[in-house]
């Protein structure tokens, strides 16, 4: 009888101990409650990335100048994947040019187009300058054609346009924006967060 009672007491105490341990454990904030989750919940099109180094790539801009991504270490970089035939890309393009113009010293905009030829890009930019009085000739704005989507799809796995990556000064991927559903204020806020 005593053995049974002792056993019952041990089991009940064990259960209580286990329950208390779980209870106190559940009081702690979850380990993965970070900025990411909050941002993802409030706006599905903006994703905060972590622990991902931006893959290096080389490109030739529409003026014939050659660059690699690593040339811009120490500056914040916006990589925009776009095309002249993509309506949302054209919608967001002037806003991106404005943001780059407003931050001439520490921001580089690299706009990689999936167009088949350079002609389409020149035509689009000419029209843009005439209609909206926007310049794309600033030294921190680099527009290039990504032939066969070598960088867009091959390296960045971007299958749908537009997509925009924001890269920090250490060349880590910081934020990914899917589509053109963002505001300049949101963009500026993200840029301010980046070191």
């Amino acid at each position, binding site marked *: 009888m005593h053995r*049974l009672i002792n056993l019952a007491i041990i089991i009940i105490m064990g*259960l209580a101990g286990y*329950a208390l341990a*779980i209870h106190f454990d559940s009081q702690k904030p979850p380990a993965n409650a970070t900025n990411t989750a909050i941002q993802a919940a409030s706006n599905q099109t903006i*994703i905060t990335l972590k622990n991902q180094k931006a893959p290096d790539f080389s490109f030739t801009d529409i003026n014939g100048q050659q660059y690699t991504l690593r040339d811009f270490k120490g500056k914040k970089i916006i990589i925009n994947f776009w095309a002249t035939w993509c309506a949302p890309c054209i919608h967001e393009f002037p806003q991106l040019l404005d943001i780059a113009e407003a931050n001439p010293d520490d921001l580089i905009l690299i706009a990689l187009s999936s167009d088949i030829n350079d002609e389409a890009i020149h035509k689009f930019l000419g029209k843009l300058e005439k209609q909206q009085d926007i310049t794309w000739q600033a030294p921190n704005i680099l527009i290039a054609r990504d032939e066969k989507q070598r960088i867009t*799809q091959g390296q960045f*796995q971007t*299958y749908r346009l537009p997509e925009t990556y924001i890269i920090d000064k250490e060349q880590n991927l910081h934020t990914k924006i*899917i589509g053109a559903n963002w505001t300049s204020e949101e963009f500026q806020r993200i840029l301010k967060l980046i070191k």
Partner: protein
Amino acid sequence: MKTLIALLLLLVSSLSYGGDFGLIGVQHQGRTKPLESYARIIHKDITGNERGALQWLAQTLFDPTTAAQEPLFPIKDPLIKQRLSLPEKQKLFSLIELQKAMISIAPQLEKLLSDPPKKPSKQEQRLIELHDQMQELNQLLRSFSALLPLNIDMPADYQDIPPTYRALLAYENDIREQLKTLIREKGEDPTLYTDDEKKLAFLGYSLQQIGASGIDNRVLRVIPGSANPEHLLAPWEAITSGEASPATAQHFKMWEDMIAAYQADQTLPEIKIDAPWRFHLERLTGRIKPFNIALALYALALLLYFKPRFSILALGSGAAIHAIAIVSRIIILDRPPVGTLYESVIFVSLICAFLAFLLRRAPLAVPAGAFTAALLLTIAPALLGSGDNMDMLVAVLNTNFWLATHVLCITAGYGVCILTASLAHIALLPNYKKLAVPIYRLSLAALLLTALGTALGGIWADQSWGRFWGWDPKENGALLIVLWLIWLLHGRYSGNLDTRAFHAGVATLNIIVALAWFGVNLLSVGLHSYGFTTGLATALTAFCTIELIIIGVLWRRYKNA
């Protein structure tokens, strides 16, 4: 000795079968599980068994054309075969065969699916089930259609590009522009095209078809998302949602390599991945099926009734393996062991076996414990709602604190009640009056656990639903057990119930527990009705009737003795 070593080697080789392919994580029904568990669940759902599930999944994913022709769907009902004009003697049918056969009943099937009858006939139910399973398999066959090599002749301009949808997507615009020019120059009649132009037109058409059929494919979530790698995406989802990132490339490459390896020699791809150890544990328990081993040992304990020492050994080993299996489930699911009706049954079964082992010196306690434990383990699989026996919890139960206290306490109470009731049956037999003492003590333990469990339930209800007691059917059931035990014990103390009546009353506890445990779920009302299982009513009625007859017969025999 040599045989033993050979057997051990066989066991080890069977446990490492398939390399790490089965350990790849897949998000399914609310949790991430190893691919091997996923394969078992889906294969069992379609075929009714788990044999060769992983090999089947590899073929389904990597060689869908062949997989669609494999006989997989069992159809026994001659009426369904007749309705679908299928050969009478054939037992298994392939997806292709069924798709062709279903065309003949398409309008009836459409009506059945859009407006299902309240009480569908067996045939109608099987047809709906078949339709759902075929749809799931169809989706599964297309999971990797973006990564599988296209079986077409490539036009000269694209010979050097890997012939997959994913690789060709970068050239989609070029292809589209080329086709536009072609149509402008030569029109839409392909007979006017050169061979290479025909190839180009067919490539454009194929890409469009594959893209359209894959766009909503979300069934196999295996690619880590870029924002949260724990959130897994289906391959098509990663391509179409924009949630891929440079890191996704390596995952696509891993799957493309596996596809190439499988298509080369039709064997499971040999890969090395760093899987969490709970996946290893889940795969191991999935392969050795510890509950079946425990069940076999309980049956052995019954068979060895005349060799008490061996019988005790079998029961003890069974209970140990049973306990290890339950602890494994706690680790795998990261939550207390009792959250579903199925889990409550396997837990109560362990309590019965464990208590019987403790009471092993009492007459017939070991066979009684082995019998109840084995019986409960046998009926447990019938209570599974879905194919996965590691289901996620409904929201109301998803609080570890109360699951670990109230639910464990009350189910442990059920376990003690059932073993006590089983012993009480035996005590009604002549010559087993010695059992009176353990039965009395066990009934006290049962009262303690059920009363404590009920009170804890009240506190949980107060926190969760805002009231301590609401005369909910499950609460009433728990109260009924407590009141029944209190009444019996008081009757015994006051002398109003003699030993026979007390034992008969305790034996009836089985019926009360069964009603409180399963009966409430049948009502499908009240706040506790989350474990609703169809087809339980008949079994429960039969159990109660048989129990009453047995107790009645024992009562009369006792009286006559």
